[in-house]
């Protein structure tokens, strides 16, 4: 591959991911609306929100770290997208691998912690404290799942994982080979998205949306962009590990949306867990299921 092609891919991959992510935000809000017997937002609503937030006249910044934190939050995901193979575009996925991707997926949370820290709003501090605890909770099963998958395929290279799964058909997909790990992975995905049972760090009525409490204008817009990236990254990673990646664009997008629809549909049926309950739940059930799955994989 020559340099020009690589550069084009590096620009195109985050952009495509962002567009798919906007669709995912729309799907999430539509599902929520339908479950509550509402009509839901119009088709371009996620785009309207982001354009409006960036077009605010007054921008309240609380200092340099506040701005840099948002850049880190978006930038971490932009970097992660270049490591996640898409149909026909690999970017730098064969050089990065799964471990690098895992690290990059933690950068946004840390960036937000930095940015929120400078706002000096107690609600924000409480929120980010809870968010980092939640990260601690879901990262343990996440690591177990990633370890099991890497062991099964004998590599941490996402491109070769996709090749193995696509060469052998459905019977070699991660979800048929390691169903227990796939189940634990879905649980982890739900925690990672911060959707309803696990959204105590956002808690609009109690701590005024936690980390987002002081964000306005383009800072909030950055977080909206981050959210669409986050939905895409989590779904695409799951599809890559367990559902054989994408043979073509249609299958890839359908798989991503289906994977995401599961936690999102479940989300609006439950009230939320407290932080310590979430840690207890995450360290008990997905870890248990994941360890049993790991035992089957490593036997």
């Amino acid at each position: 591959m020559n340099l020009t092609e690589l550069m084009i891919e590096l620009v195109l991959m985050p952009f495509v991911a962002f567009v798919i992510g906007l669709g995912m935000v729309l799907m999430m809000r539509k599902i929520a609306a339908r479950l509550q017997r509402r009509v839901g937002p119009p088709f371009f609503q996620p785009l309207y929100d982001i354009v409006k937030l960036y077009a605010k006249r007054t921008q309240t910044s609380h200092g340099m770290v506040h701005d840099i934190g948002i850049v880190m939050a978006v930038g971490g995901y932009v970097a992660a997208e270049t490591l996640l193979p898409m149909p026909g575009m690999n970017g730098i996925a064969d050089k990065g691998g799964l471990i690098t991707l895992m690290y990059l997926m933690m950068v946004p949370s840390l960036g937000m912690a930095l940015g929120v820290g400078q706002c000096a709003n107690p609600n924000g501090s409480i929120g980010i404290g809870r968010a980092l605890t939640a990260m601690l909770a879901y990262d343990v099963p996440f690591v177990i799942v990633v370890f099991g998958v890497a062991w099964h395929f004998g590599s941490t290279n996402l491109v070769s994982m996709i090749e193995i799964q696509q060469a052998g058909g459905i019977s070699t997909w991660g979800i048929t080979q390691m169903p227990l790990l796939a189940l634990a992975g879905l649980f982890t995905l739900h925690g990672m998205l911060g959707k309803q049972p696990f959204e105590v760090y956002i808690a609009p009525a109690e701590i005024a949306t936690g980390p987002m409490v002081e964000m306005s204008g383009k800072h909030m817009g950055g977080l909206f962009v981050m959210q669409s990236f986050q939905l895409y990254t989590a779904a695409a990673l799951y599809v890559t590990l367990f559902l054989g990646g994408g043979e073509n664009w249609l299958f890839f997008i359908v798989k991503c949306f289906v994977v995401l629809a599961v936690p999102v549909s479940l989300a609006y049926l439950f009230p939320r867990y407290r932080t310590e309950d979430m840690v207890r739940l995450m360290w008990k059930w997905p870890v248990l299921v994941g360890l049993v799955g790991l035992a089957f994989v490593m036997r």
Partner: protein
Amino acid sequence: MSVLKDIPVRYETPQASTSGNPLANVFDEFIRFCRSRSLFMLHYCTGCGAIELPPAMTSRFDMERLGIQPMVTPRQADILLVTGYVSVKTLKRVILTYEQMASPKYVIGICSCTVNGGMYWQSYATAKKLNDYLPVDMYIAGCMPRPEAVIEGLRALMENIRTGASDNWKDYYQRYDHYLANQQRLFGETWQTPTDVIGEAKNYGVLGPETEGEHTRLLSLHKQPLEPLRMTLNAGKLERM
């Protein structure tokens, strides 16, 4: 000012498009369209009008199909919804909240109480006309207005935003002295808010001839700069815990 010809009339010539290019304003129009279709709403629900908002938001009338959704902090919000009467004490909080919001911002007064005091006209403790203290973009009259009326008012506001007719947030900057005069009349001369409105007006280039006046001069005499509270730990208390 009972004689009609004594009422001062302001007339600002609308800025005509300088270039003949019909595509010159496309970007502005797109942004105005997005603003009108995405409104985050902060509701200050002190009065009885708040009762009519849940049906307007939930499955019966569903505001989200118009792109309107509730937000919980002033920083994120576009609309400040004041539902019902504001007492002198709550009005202070409403003004603090309004000044923290990011422009362009819009104020909606719901119920008769915000229009002219309503049934609290004779009360000594309520502010009568919200328009005196904050630049109201849309009044939804009624006691209380039904959810249909609320949706209708919000749609009218959306249309105003789309055509660019609703820019009262500039009025607050440009005639700050007028609003501050009314606020000082109610709260006393030492009234101040943490937000530096004049500084913001200068920074964003929306300074008007009536931004500064005798009342802002009075404010500058009393204004104390905000200082962060010092964090202290009571070690003796911690030891006993």
